[in-house]
């Protein structure tokens, strides 16, 4: 049972959290201006990184806040968590 550091509540067991996929994928400003292919990339395509990967998590059983994390996909180690709108240092 890993601990995940909620930027607000501190370390909690991973079962209190929900995974939200890759972070920093912005919703396109003008979806209607995109080709079918570009739109499909937004909807369906995500990186499959080996190593450091920025992803979104929600402390769903706690304060219900979404935040970002950088995790090493080889070891599952959380290298950093940071609030939405912040930049990973």
């Amino acid at each position, binding site marked *: 049972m890993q601990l995940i550091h909620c930027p607000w509540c501190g370390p909690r067991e991973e079962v209190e959290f929900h995974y*939200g996929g890759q972070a920093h994928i912005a*919703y396109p400003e003008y979806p*209607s201006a995109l080709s079918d292919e570009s739109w499909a990339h*937004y909807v369906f395509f995500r990186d499959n990184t080996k190593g450091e990967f920025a992803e979104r998590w929600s402390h769903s059983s706690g304060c219900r806040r*979404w935040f970002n994390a950088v995790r090493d996909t080889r070891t599952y180690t959380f290298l950093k968590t940071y609030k939405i709108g912040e930049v990973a240092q």
Partner: protein
Amino acid sequence: MSSERVDGSSRVDGYGRLDRSRTLRFTFDGQPYTGHPGDTIASALLANGVVVLGSSVKLGRSRGISASWTEDATGLIQIEEPFPEPMLLASAVELVDGMVVRGLNGQGRLAEVPDAARYDRRHHHVDTLVVGAGPAGLRAALAAARRGERVALIDDRPEAGGSLTGSETIDGRSSRHFVASVLADLAEYPDVLHLQRTTAFGHYDDGFVLALERRTDHLPATEAGNRSRQRVHRIRAQRVVVATGAHERPIVFADNDRPGIMLAASARDFLHRYGVLVGREVVLFTSHDGAYDTARDLAAAGASVTVVEARPQGPALEGVRAIPGARVIPGARVISTLADQEHQDGRIGAAVVIDAEGHEFFVNCDALLLSGGWNPTAHLFSHVRGALAYDSQLGAFKPAQSVPGTEVVGAAAGEGIQPGLVIWRVPGPRERQFVDVQRDSTVADIARAVGAGLRSVEHVKRYTTIGTAHDQGKTSGMIAAGITAELMNRPIEELGTTTFRPPYVPVAFAALAGRERGELFDPARKTALHEWHVKAGAVFEDVGQWKRARHYPKPGEDMEAAVLRECAAVRTGVGILDGSTLGKIDVQGPDAPALLDLMYTNMMSSLKVGSVRYGVMCGVDGMVIDDGTVVRLAEDRYMVITTTGGAAKILDWMEEWVQTEWPHLKVKLASVTEQWAVFPVVGPRSREVIGEVFGDLDVSNEAFGFMTWRDTELGGVPVRLARISFSGELAYEVNVNAWYAEAVWLKLLEAGAKHNITPYGTETMHVLRAEKGYPIIGQDTDGTVTPQDLGMGWAVSKKKPDFVGKRSFARAENQNPLRKQLVGLLPTDESTKLPEGSQIVEFAADGVLPAPPVPMLGHVTSSYRSAALGRPFALALLKGGRERIGDVVHVPVGEQLVAAQITSAVLVDPEGARRDG
């Protein structure tokens, strides 16, 4: 099976930490025996001369006790009483009075009655967790306690001390005094948790250790009280100190699996802990100085000891050479064994020894003790990916790197283990040289694996099954690696060893389940009216975690009859439903309209205060994820109603967008699912009931139109009414603070009595909505269905520049006219209720299903008997369905093809004439 009572106990006076003033009775394979408090089943059996316990799983060879604790590979038993439990180790089960024990021939037997014992768990947070209360662990725990830390010290045996026999000297005191004084010191610290009989069985990320405490099995039944039988401790530690000692390593030779063959230190343990001398004529086969402690102690206790010493020069240390009562044969090896002639049960009778000159001879013995060295017990280090490295001095792998937060101390780190001659096996017939005695796996099996081209110890393990038994290779793993390396002619450093994985010892599922059994297995969510439903005789169904009243059968009614009655009552009179489980979200703030315009396919900003609108929500892929009504409470406030199953998911979904994508929107969300009790009062007579209960309100269609809401009050309590219908009938949804749920419900029933108001359940609700073609998201949809597929293009705004899912509607695939669409199906025989999930195929004129592959056109999503139609009907997702209305298709039901006509999904009141009463 052969086991017998031998007159003349092997118990020796002056040894052991038993309470010999008390006698415990037990039976083994039907024979009565006695032991003492402090005994294990193994020590009591050995004390009674019982050497053979059972037979092996594959070859049926006799098996006895080969170690004094959980590393024993062979001494498996079945407990019959106090409660049936299979595959336990005689060496690790403490004896209590009245036990009924059987030896095992291969497999055990699970209990056929429920286990009434309690199992639970505890969470702990400590600065330092020390696993193992031997000398190294005790010192580490005391040092941490003295630093003011929160400490847990856990140890798997009944008493602290580890491998100490009590006769050693530590810090100038007897080791027994050392242990007692450390424990007394630790007891002074309030934040030190000390648990014996507690086995750390898994070490996970971030200092998390799971440990199993055996709490009551060693107690007489009268003393256990209400204590849980076993407890899983979930310990979160800043620092984990692994002080788990080492496991002794056997040496492999032919016929090395006989009862009476045992690890050397275990024989010493049996003597000092239990006062049991495992043999009178003992052969000790070793290659290092550490084993001479056993020779000395057993000789002192009265055994005649022959040490077969593999090293040509004999023991390295001067002090161990001369042991009174023992003879040492240097440069010799045990090459095989012979069975005892008298007992005829396979037990050891003699060791076949070859000396330095190559002479073979027998040494008669009733115990053959083995010690090829010691393997550090590094499991808990290995669990957290700690790397092990081969130490050629020890002939074992030991912790190499450091792992943050984990320290290994004492013998587990390889400290204090005397080096010797590393010897895995002696030459001899491979097929009789057992490596994993429990699995009946031999050197020949390893040779076959290597011969088959396997090059990794992990693969060899799986090919040979070595190390896969209850003991997980505690004693066999290292020698298997060593022998594999020899056979492959590769250095063992390169080959490596198998990975240790949790659990370190077998753990019962009951212990892992803890209290999460029966009623506590999964929480049952209940509405404020639950008790009323129970009293009314409701049959419940699970909807997610909710318990919902499914129907209310009257005496003699089955579900079909009850549902037909409830449906008829709603369509002709008035019914009432507990709809409180619907998800409810309060959406507040100046940007609430903007947010809902983005979340819903339809326009919510144009909704007037006082009105209600049905809405559909899609994912970015354009597929429907939820639906429900939206109530506009104020310019800056809405209440969003979700499906029962979608409540948490949709709140999370909306929060995700607000928090991550549109944080600039000034809007806040709050769940109010349990805040509001919701009772739809439905049917042509509902207006009369509502009008009577809420006398202050004009309930006429003109004053209170469809899809509007009004605030009123009842008995001083605010109530909100909404003209929403999920059945097509005139309906008023009554919303009230759930504190008043029962009071309001009873008022409605009271006023409705003269109209024969009928409480109805979810099954009736489903039938009524299906008759109107209203889909249930998740039943009539499966994540691949667009609003257009459902015939709800009218709910998709053309005016809004964007909303979640909009762009996907324009994708070519979503324009395909052959997409599956929601339609109705009417079986033409007017009697068959099509099973939900049935496939739909083209009509076959000859009534015979064509040869496969049969093109599938779609499937039945909902199917009911309709009181209003007087026949069964179904909803279905059908390829290009709306263009095919009027066609007849076939639905295979069992061996039959049932013909069904495709219809509009709306089967009752397509004009919508009934909703206004």
